[in-house]
């Protein structure tokens, strides 16, 4: 008798659960639409005519569809130069900084030395130092070195490694058995050789994910470029679209501004959509660890 009642109540619970799930699903979908709506609006605006944009009525569908703003943006020399400058910063930085970060992560994860724990904690603590605190002295330093007429201020500091990348790669290496290290030692393999031949291939996946995240950071960076790049010919893409915004807003050419912003977002968006699973996983880990 009581058993029957139990069954009945559990059936009721699952039915109730199902109703809740439907409500939750609808709510989540509505929220998601709200989240991406501004971005859709951005793309829509980039295809609109000035008249439609300034009509003041809510429209999402460009009529007629104007693609001319995209070719107009891509024909602007400073825009292309911005893309090239951003790449000129990102490529050497990722190669050299990626290498130093991976090597340091290997040292922290697989080698024995005095002061390991405290040094690692000290390094982690540096993440908390706001960039704003060091930006004036860095600016003065880079000016004295004559770097502010080049892209060096954006490249050199990162070449010494990226602390969050070191943290994640170390975490990844800790999951690889120490026996591999011992075996390499017995084989007479040098420490650097062990890193290059054995451990680096094993952390390639994590390495790639971290490089992607770092690339996004470099590509989207604005504060450092705006301080350190004194001459216009060195402006990175974000500085360029910012200057477009102040210049073309006066002419109410919002379609052009939006088209430039859309293009500026495409590389990181593509990377994100292709590798979203690993990127999101890597973000999720940071909160648990």
């Amino acid at each position, binding site marked *: 008798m009581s058993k029957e009642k139990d069954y009945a109540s559990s059936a009721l619970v699952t039915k109730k659960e199902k109703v809740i799930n439907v409500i939750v699903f609808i709510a989540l979908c509505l929220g998601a639409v709200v989240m991406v709506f501004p971005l859709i609006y951005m793309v829509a605006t980039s295809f609109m005519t000035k008249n439609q944009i300034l009509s003041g009525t809510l429209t999402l569908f460009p009529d007629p569809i104007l693609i001319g703003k995209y070719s107009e943006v891509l024909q602007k020399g400073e825009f292309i130069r911005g893309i090239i400058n951003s790449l000129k910063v990102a490529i050497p930085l990722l190669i050299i900084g990626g290498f130093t970060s991976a090597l340091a992560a290997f040292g922290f994860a697989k080698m024995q030395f005095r002061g390991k724990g405290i040094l690692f904690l000290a390094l982690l603590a540096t993440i908390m130092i706001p960039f704003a605190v060091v930006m004036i002295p860095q600016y003065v330093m880079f000016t004295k070195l004559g770097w502010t007429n080049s892209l060096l201020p954006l490249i050199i500091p990162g070449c010494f490694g990226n602390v969050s990348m070191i943290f994640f790669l170390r975490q990844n290496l800790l999951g690889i058995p120490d026996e591999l290290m011992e075996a390499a030692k017995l084989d007479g393999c040098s420490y*650097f050789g062990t890193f290059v031949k054995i451990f680096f291939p094993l952390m390639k996946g994590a390495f790639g994910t971290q490089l992607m995240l770092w690339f996004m950071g470099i590509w989207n960076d*604005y504060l450092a470029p705006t301080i350190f790049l004194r001459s216009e010919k060195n402006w990175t893409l974000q500085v360029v679209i910012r200057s477009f*915004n102040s210049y073309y807003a006066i002419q109410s050419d919002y379609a052009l501004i939006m088209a430039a*912003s859309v293009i*500026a977002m495409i590389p990181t968006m593509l990377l994100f959509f292709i590798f979203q699973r690993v990127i999101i996983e890597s*973000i999720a880990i940071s909160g648990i660890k």
Partner: protein
Amino acid sequence: MSKTTKKTKTKMSAMAKKEERWAWLFIAAPFVGFLLFMAYPICFAVFASMSKWTGINSLIGNFCGLDNYIALFQDEKFWKSLMTTIIYLIGIPIGMILGLLLAMGMNRKIPGVRVLRTMYYVPVVSSLVAISILWAWVYNYDYGLFNSIIKALTGMHGPNWLGDTFWVKVAMIIFMTWKGLGTSIILYLAGLQNIPRNYYEAALMDGANGWQKFKNITLPLVSPVTFYILITSLIGGFQVFVEVSVMVSNGGTDYSAATVVYYLYDKAFSNGQLGYGCAIAVLLAIIVFIITAFNFKFQDKWVKTMD
């Protein structure tokens, strides 16, 4: 102690020494980077903060002791920007509550969680400059998306989002919450998935209702995630600059949108008061340090660990 063991012992330590030297070499780069681009600049900033230095005049010749700090404490614009920075922090609890609720929704057995998760995360990976430009357009008084919607719904003209000293703060908080929500969701979702199912089953046996389960299981067990989000958002919250710089000009009407970092930038790079800027930087570092230390000190009061 026999001779042979002593010998192997010294041999071992020679190997260990070799390993240690290599390890130090491997980890050297980030520390050299830290010394050059963090430690030295911080010391420099502390020193420069005690000089009426403009970058052109002599740093040592214009030494003024604590004058910059005294001036800073009487500087209305500084207090205003600090206050605005703190007001913007209201977005942190809003984002955390929304993030936890949405993550709890996604943690249920519903279809398309991965697609939804991605959609909420898109603003996080977007360029901050690009989406600030976009939102400045969304907030446009005459033609923007928000006021178009308000007009379509109510027939009235919406507020002057970025031009009004009150609404600009609301606008910034909405923007920052939108931008950061994806991160909180991902982090909370990972935290929720880490909670063993049998905790909830046991609670169900004990006849706990939904709210009790939330209060006694979910909330305490995601508290490490809450702590992580709190710490990182507070540190980030004191560094807000780009959105203010892009969305309003000159810090907004009556400087109502300017943050501490915006003021620092303004003083140092628009007015050329580098010494004064350094004083703001040092004060900012102290504030961030105190808040972080405070959080770590009191974390054991509310942050629970799984074991």
